[in-house]
C-alpha cells in the first residue's frame, strides 16, 4: 500500500485480515479500558455518599475527609472516563460503519437516553464538587444522590445496546433492509435485565475492591511501622464492605446469566463450558477437573438431561471456544476467591461485634489478600466481558450480522490500533501518577469538625 493511500485512508476493497483483527482489538482494548473507569464512575460516588452520610450523622472528621478525597478522585477519574467514552462513540463509526449504517437507528434511542443520563451525572458531579462549601451539609449530601442514580442509569442504557447485540429485537428485515423499528422493544430485549444487573454488580465490586486495595496497602504499612491509623481502617472498611455485599449477589446473578445464555445462545454456552458434543448427562468440566453428569444436573436439575454441544452449531458460526472457556473460568475462579474473602470479612465483623477476637478483621494474611482484590475484581470483570463478547462471535448482531460485514473497508486500521495503544498507555500511567500525587497532598482540615486523629498526620 502506498503512503498516499495510507494518509488519505481511501478504500480499495474489503478490509485486510490484519486490519480486521486490529479493529477488533482496538474496540476490545478501548472498551476494556473504559469499563474500569465507568465502574469507578458508578461506584466511587456511592462510596463518597456512604462516607458523607456517616460523617453527617456522627460529625466524624475521618469520614468527612474520606468523602472529600474520594469525590476529588472521582472528579479526575470521571474526566478521564468521559473522554475515553467519547472515543468509543467515534469508534462506532470509524471501525464499524456498516453496523451503524444498518442498525444505528434501532438502538440509537438508548444512546440518546444514555447521553442525557450522563450529562445529568456530570452536572450534579459539578454541583456536588463545587457546592461543598456553598450548600448546607444536608443539601450537599442530597446533590450527590442524582450522581449515583444517573450513573447507574447511564450504565444500564449502554448495556441495553450490548444486550441487543446478543438478543436483537425491535425491527424486521425485508430484503436486507431494516423496517418496523420499535426502539423500546430493542431496548428492553430479553438479555437486558440479566446483563444490566450483572454488570452493575460487577462495577460496584470493581470499585469497592479497588478502593479497598489502596487502604489495605496503607494498613499493611501501618502495621509494619507499628501505627494504628483509623483513617486507613475506615477507608478500607466502607469499600470492602460494598464489594463484600455484592459478591454473593453476583454469584446468584451469574447463575441466572449462565442459564440465560444456555437457553438463548447455545454456541456461546457450549464454548463457555467446553461442551463439544451434544449428549445426555453432560459432565461439568472446570480446568482439569471433570464431574460426570454435573452440568446437566446444575442446569436442568436432571442428571440425564440432553445439552447441546458445539457440534450442534454450524462450523462457520462457532466462536473461538478456547478463549471463551478460559476467560469464563478465570472469571468464575476470581469470583469465588472474592466471595471467600467477603465471607471471612463478614465472619470477622460478626465475631468482633460480639466482643471476641477484636483484631480478626486486620490479620496480615487477610490484608495481603485484600490488597489484591482490586486487581482480581478488574481481571474478573474483563474476563467476563471477554466471555460475552468473544462468545458472540462471529456475529456483531447475533444471528443477523457478522462482524466481518460491519468493518470499515478502508486500509490501515492497524496503525490506528498502534497509536491508540501508545496514547492509552501514557494516559493510564498519568492517571495513576496524578492519583498518587493527590493521595500525598495534605487536605485542609475540615472546619468546625472534631479534631482529626493526631496519628493521622504522620500516617501519610
Amino acid at each position, binding site marked *: 500500500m502506498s503512503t*498516499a493511500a495510507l494518509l488519505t485512508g481511501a478504500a480499495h476493497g474489503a478490509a485486510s485480515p490484519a486490519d480486521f483483527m486490529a479493529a477488533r482489538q482496538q474496540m476490545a482494548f478501548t472498551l476494556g479500558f473504559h469499563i474500569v473507569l465507568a465502574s469507578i464512575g458508578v461506584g466511587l460516588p456511592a462510596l463518597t455518599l456512604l462516607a458523607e452520610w456517616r460523617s453527617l450523622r456522627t460529625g466524624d472528621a475521618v469520614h468527612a475527609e474520606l468523602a472529600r478525597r474520594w469525590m476529588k478522585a472521582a472528579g479526575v477519574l470521571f474526566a478521564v472516563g468521559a473522554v475515553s467514552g467519547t472515543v468509543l462513540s467515534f469508534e462506532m463509526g470509524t471501525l464499524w460503519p456498516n453496523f*451503524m*449504517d444498518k442498525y444505528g437507528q434501532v438502538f440509537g434511542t438508548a444512546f*440518546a437516553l444514555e447521553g442525557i443520563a450522563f*450529562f445529568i451525572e456530570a452536572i450534579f458531579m459539578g454541583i456536588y464538587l463545587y457546592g461543598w462549601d456553598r450548600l448546607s451539609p444536608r443539601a450537599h449530601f442530597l446533590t450527590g444522590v442524582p450522581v449515583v442514580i444517573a450513573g447507574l442509569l447511564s450504565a444500564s442504557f449502554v448495556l441495553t445496546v450490548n444486550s441487543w447485540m446478543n438478543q436483537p429485537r425491535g425491527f424486521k428485515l425485508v430484503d436486507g433492509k431494516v423496517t418496523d*423499528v420499535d426502539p423500546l422493544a430493542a431496548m428492553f430485549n430479553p438479555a437486558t435485565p440479566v446483563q444490566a444487573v450483572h454488570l452493575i454488580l460487577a462495577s460496584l465490586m470493581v470499585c469497592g475492591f479497588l478502593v479497598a486495595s489502596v487502604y489495605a496497602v496503607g494498613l499493611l504499612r501501618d502495621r509494619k511501622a507499628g501505627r494504628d491509623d483509623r483513617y486507613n481502617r475506615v477507608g478500607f472498611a466502607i469499600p470492602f464492605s460494598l464489594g463484600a455485599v455484592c459478591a454473593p449477589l453476583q454469584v446468584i446473578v451469574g447463575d441466572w446469566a449462565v442459564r440465560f445464555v444456555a437457553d438463548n445462545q447455545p454456541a456461546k454456552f457450549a464454548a463457555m463450558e467446553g461442551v463439544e458434543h451434544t449428549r445426555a448427562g453432560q459432565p461439568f468440566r472446570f480446568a482439569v477437573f471433570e464431574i460426570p453428569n454435573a452440568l446437566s444436573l446444575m442446569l436442568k436439575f436432571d442428571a440425564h438431561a440432553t445439552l447441546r454441544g458445539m457440534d450442534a452449531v454450524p462450523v462457520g458460526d462457532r466462536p473461538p471456544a478456547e478463549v471463551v472457556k478460559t476467560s469464563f473460568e478465570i472469571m468464575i475462579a476470581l469470583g469465588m476467591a472474592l466471595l471467600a474473602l467477603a465471607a471471612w470479612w463478614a465472619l470477622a465483623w460478626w465475631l468482633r461485634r460480639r466482643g471476641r477476637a477484636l483484631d480478626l478483621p486486620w490479620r496480615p494474611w487477610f490484608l495481603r489478600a485484600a490488597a489484591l482484590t482490586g486487581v482480581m475484581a478488574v481481571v474478573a470483570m474483563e474476563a467476563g466481558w471477554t466471555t460475552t463478547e468473544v462468545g458472540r462471535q462471529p456475529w456483531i448482531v447475533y444471528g443477523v450480522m457478522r462482524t466481518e460485514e460491519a468493518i470499515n473497508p478502508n486500509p490501515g486500521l492497524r496503525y*490506528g490500533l498502534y497509536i491508540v495503544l501508545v496514547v492509552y498507555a501514557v494516559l493510564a500511567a498519568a492517571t495513576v501518577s496524578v492519583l498518587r500525587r493527590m493521595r500525598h497532598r495534605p487536605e485542609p482540615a475540615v472546619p468546625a469538625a472534631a479534631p482529626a486523629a493526631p496519628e493521622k498526620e504522620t500516617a501519610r
Partner: protein
Amino acid sequence: MSLADAALGLIMVGLSAYLLFGGADFGAGLWHLLSRRRTDQEVIEHAMGPIWEANHVWLIFVMVMTWTAFPPIFADVMSAHWIPLSLAALGIVARGSTFVFSKADPDQRWYPWVFGVSSAVTPYCLGAVAAVVATGGTTWWSGTGLYGGVLTTALCAYLAAVYLIWDARRLADEDASLRFRGYALVSGSVAGLLALPGAAALGVRSPLILLSAAAGLVSLVLLVRRAYLSVRVTGGLAVVAVLWGAAEMAGLDLDAAAAHDAVLQAVFVALGVGAVILVPSMAWLYVLFQRGPEPPARPAPEPRPSRH
C-alpha cells in the same frame, strides 16, 4: 416540516453550540499555549468548565443524533474520514485528561503542553473533515481540507479571545483584559481574511457570507470601542454563520438517509424529557459556579511530605 427536518435542525443546533462553546474551549487551549504569561493562563483555567470539558456533550449529542436519525450519512462520513476523526478523538482524550491532570498536579510541566497542542490539532482535524464534507471533496489531505482545518482553528482562537476579554476583567486585571482584546483583534482579522477569499474560491454564493462578514466587521468595531459583552454576540454570530454556510453547501441526501418515524419520535420524546431535567440542573450549576469566582478556602501551600 418533516421529522427528518426537525432532526436536522437539532443536529445543527448541537453543532452550532459545539462550535460556540467547545470551539471556544479549543481556542482557549491554544492561547494557553501561545501566551506564556501566568496571569493569562490562570484566567483561561478558571474560565473553562468546572471539572471536565462539559462542552463535548454537544459533540456526543451530534454524533448520537446523526447515527440515529441519518445512519448512512454517519457511516459514510466516519468511515471515509476515519483518520482525521480518530486523531480528533485522541486529541479530545489528550485535552480532557491533561486539563484535569494539570489542575490536580500543577507541578507536572508537560500537561499544559499536551493540552495546548491537542487544542490545536483537534479543531484542525474536525474542521478539515467539515470542509471536505461540505464541498463534496474526498480527503482531508487536500487543499480544501487544509483550508478548512486552518480556518476552523482560527475561528476557535478568535471566539476564545473574544470571550476571555470579559473573563480576564472579572478574574484578573485590566492588563490581561487588554491583552485578550489584542488577541481577539489579530485572530479576528486573520479569520476574516481567511474566510472571505476562501468562500469566493470555493464558489460559495450564500447571503450567510454577507451576514458573517458584517458581524465580523461590527465585532472589530466593538472590540476597538471596548464593548466586551456585545462583542460576544456579534463575534459568535460571525463564526457560526460560517458553519451554517458550510452546511448549506453540503449536498447530502437527507430524505433518503432518514431513519423511520418511530425512531425519530422516540428520540424526540427522550430529548424532551431529558431537557426538563437538564435545563434547571444546569442553571443551578451555573449559579453556584458564578457565586464565587475563586474556589473557597484554598489552603496555603504546605510542604509536601517527602516522597520515596
